[in-house]
């Protein structure tokens, strides 16, 4: 580290301690190391290079604003961090600097069960929030597979997708308004109306959307008012097994067109996913040999409503080659949605056990393009595994309905790949990044988006996201907005190639 940089950092740390208290400004290696990674594979060889310089844990909006002002004064980068369970590397600091861990800000500020909102600080987890809401018979229905771990700030930073979004909406649909500390340390409120609770207004620009899904590049959310929903009276999970993925694919179209309003999600499992779960997942309920793919549907509503649609659901399944697997399997599969994801220990098809971590692509693809995307993705993944059989393993695909409030149109399309991080080398990592790039490119070539849930900032997909998906003027506009709001490039630099916004200046 150059002398001036080191001096600036030391001075900044001194001011941070004055602003937050010594206890909440942490420089020990382990405090920094545990907050470097997120939940997508990294390759342990990269870890050391990504360590931040200091971690702070503010307790209030004023403290967050103070941190941002200090960062601007000393030109030290900031990376906001929620639960650190994102899958887009958003909370991983690319330019060292300050990690702002917001998990101490976890208070519930107001519950309004008449206008149906809850106002919270960004460090609260959804499961904990819903425990408090339960006695009022309302819930906050954002339900990612990472529900027990994420915090609201991270959900907003990622612009996340919910398993129940088809019924209840996704994160961008569930935020009424927010308080944001901007990259220059100003405190603003985004959202409509004189209060915090208006969902639909035609006044002004839709600035709220700008501050959702920006991966911490445009500011730090310090308070949010969320939309609540009545807690559903009943749920109806139905699990159909099919003999082919084509049957499963066809069945989902029939569900898309069914007009069933309480349908809150449809999930397809492909052949490789069924095979993976058979060999590797203790929680997986054994299915007969003939089962090759599957479709799971979930309805939420009143008991009367669900009783009325039951037979339509079964009819659609049966008419499209689906065999209903019974109540126990249906309920068991749905209940394990949050827990099923990945352990490091893995059984491989050759019977050996490997320590591998989970990588998850999450493109948004329209229904008609799914067969093409599936075929092309497997070609890429299989070539990667053939080249590095000890380092990668294919864990199959899921496809979930992705359109908010409606079951038709786009699908969050996930291919899961096991990655041997412990034994990663720079050369193998380069091949991995190349495969990811190709996967992302297929998504965009097929008219889709690189990411439906996690964000498109990871190495491998970020080039495709910025230069291909957002090429028709959007990426340029993003850079102009970034530079306008963050003149010093303080907020999460290195993400989404937004550093390019400042390059002209540097060259000049």
């Amino acid at each position, binding site marked *: 580290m150059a002398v001036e940089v080191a001096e600036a950092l030391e001075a900044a740390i001194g001011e941070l301690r004055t602003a937050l208290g010594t206890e909440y400004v*942490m420089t*020990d*290696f*382990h*405090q920094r*190391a*545990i*907050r470097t*990674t*997120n*939940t997508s594979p990294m390759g*342990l060889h990269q*870890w*050391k290079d990504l*360590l931040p310089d200091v971690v702070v*844990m503010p307790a209030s909006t004023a403290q967050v604003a103070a941190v941002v002002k200090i960062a601007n004064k000393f030109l030290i980068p900031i990376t906001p961090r929620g*639960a*650190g*369970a994102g899958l887009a590397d958003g909370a991983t600091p690319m330019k060292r600097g300050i990690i702002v*861990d917001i*998990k*101490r800000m*976890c208070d519930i500020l107001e519950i309004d069960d008449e206008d149906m909102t809850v106002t919270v600080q960004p*460090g609260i*987890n959804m*499961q*904990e929030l819903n425990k408090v809401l339960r006695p009022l018979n309302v819930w906050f229905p954002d339900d990612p597979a*990472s529900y*027990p*771990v994420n915090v609201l700030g991270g959900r907003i930073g990622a612009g996340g997708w919910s398993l129940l979004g088809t019924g209840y909406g996704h994160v961008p649909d569930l935020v009424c308004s927010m308080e944001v500390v901007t990259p220059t340390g100003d405190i603003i409120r985004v959202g409509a109306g004189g209060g915090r609770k208006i969902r639909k207004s035609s006044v002004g620009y839709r600035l709220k959307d700008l501050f959702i899904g920006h991966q911490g590049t445009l500011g730090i959310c310090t308070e949010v008012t969320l939309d609540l929903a009545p807690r559903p009276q009943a749920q109806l999970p139905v699990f159909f097994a099919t003999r082919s993925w084509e049957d499963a694919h066809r069945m989902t179209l029939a569900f898309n067109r069914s007009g069933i309003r309480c349908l809150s999600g449809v999930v397809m499992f492909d052949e490789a996913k069924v095979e993976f779960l058979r060999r590797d*997942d*203790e*929680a997986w309920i054994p299915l007969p040999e003939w089962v090759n793919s599957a479709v799971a549907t979930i309805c939420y509503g009143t008991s009367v409503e669900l009783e009325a649609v039951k037979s339509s659901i079964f009819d659609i399944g049966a008419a499209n080659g689906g065999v209903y697997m019974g109540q126990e399997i249906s309920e068991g599969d749905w209940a394990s949605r949050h*827990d*099923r*994801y*990945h*352990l*490091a*220990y893995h*059984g491989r098809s050759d019977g050996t*056990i490997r*320590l*591998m*971590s*989970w990588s998850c692509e999450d493109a948004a693809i329209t229904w008609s393009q799914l067969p093409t995307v599936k075929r092309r993705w497997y070609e890429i993944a299989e070539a990667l595994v053939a080249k590095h059989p000890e380092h990668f393993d294919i864990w199959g695909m899921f496809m979930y309905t992705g359109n908010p409030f409606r079951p038709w149109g786009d699908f969050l399309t996930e291919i899961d790949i096991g990655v041997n*991080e*412990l034994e990663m080398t720079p050369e193998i990592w380069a091949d991995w990044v190349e495969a990811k790039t190709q996967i992302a490119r297929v998504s965009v070539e097929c008219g889709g988006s690189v990411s439906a849930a996690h964000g498109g900032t990871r190495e491998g997909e970020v080039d495709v996201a910025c230069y291909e998906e957002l090429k028709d003027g959007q990426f340029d506009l993003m850079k102009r907005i970034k530079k306008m709001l963050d003149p010093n490039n303080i907020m999460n630099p290195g993400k989404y190639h937004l550093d390019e916004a400042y390059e002209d200046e540097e060259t000049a």
Partner: protein
Amino acid sequence: MSQQLSSKPFYDEKIEGTIIPLPLIKDCYAVFACRHKFCREVCPVYQDDRDESHTSYGFHTALLGISQGMGELADIRETITNCLECGACELRCPNTLFGGDFYGASTTTVDLVRKVRRDLVASEIGFEKYEEIVATVDRYIAYFEGPEGDLTKWADGLNLATSGETMLFVDYFNAFETTDIPRNAAKILTAAGVDFGILPRPGATLGELLDVNLETFVEMGRHNVAALEQAGAKRVIIINPHDYTYFTRDYTTHIGELPFEVVFITDVLEELTNNGQIVFGEATASEVFSKVSYHDPCTLNKICGITESPRSIIGKLPGVTYIDVTPVEQWSYCCGKGNASFKTLHPDTSYKIGAKRLQAAADLGVSQLVLACPHCKDQLTDVGARSGVAIEPVHILTLVAQAMGLD
């Protein structure tokens, strides 16, 4: 029955400075790479300070970081003290929940924390307030070497035998700090017609030893096993749930299979009430309206999986209305004292965790919180007095003795 799925012999290999043994690296990686981080929200310490370095993820990842050349053992001397050794994270970890049996690789944070603390001691680095822990250990060990009869003073006037096929094991905390608990246990068993004896000189069963001095813990354990065997024990009844974990997990790991059956007192009482050897009287007027809940001690609930028998006994107590909080919900609770050293290491956090637990009981609208652990009783009585939360912590044996008319 203890529910430990994985015992990790490689924990015996010491961490030296920056060198982490390879099997431990892989073990830490398995927690790091799981990345669900379910271990956080369930952790009573994290719930209080929201600092993920004080969680299973934090401890395992810090060690993995050392293995990658980012730091050394001494760097984590403070952080590693921030664990109650309660076991919640072990249960909530997907490696245990979904992989435990399948891959034989459950997460064992409690053992890891103890191991790291011991390695710090062995490396002469120590940790904050280490001396206070050693002083506590020395104070208790002195009882072992003290005058004959001191260790059984709690039983004065009860005329208990010192041998028998059934032995009641009474630890030093109960023997000196909460004497009504072993006295009630002895009175109840006698009234139920159980023939049993007690050891005149039991060895120390201190969790603190697992944090600082495994050799003495094992030495004392060997003494206990031999003395109980010599006394003719076929069945050993334990009244301190911390001891139950030491006998069923730590003695079996470090000493070997035990030559007798080990049972917890509430399991025994459940048997005795079911077969009619214990009969409760009618409720007295003052008892009729008591509304109670039950606090699962971490050691029983999270480490040993004993949750049914205390509930079953409370359910049979005359005049008691019982409000349950499920054992799984109580994974995220703790009285705040921790399994061994925590209260000494972090008295403020310990108090806050305890006050939160009492408040959760108060929110249920109960007047008493029933306990099955002397440490929880001691801690929550203390916390109740300081916080003013109007809940009476009461030991289950007190209620049973009362209901049997034993005073």
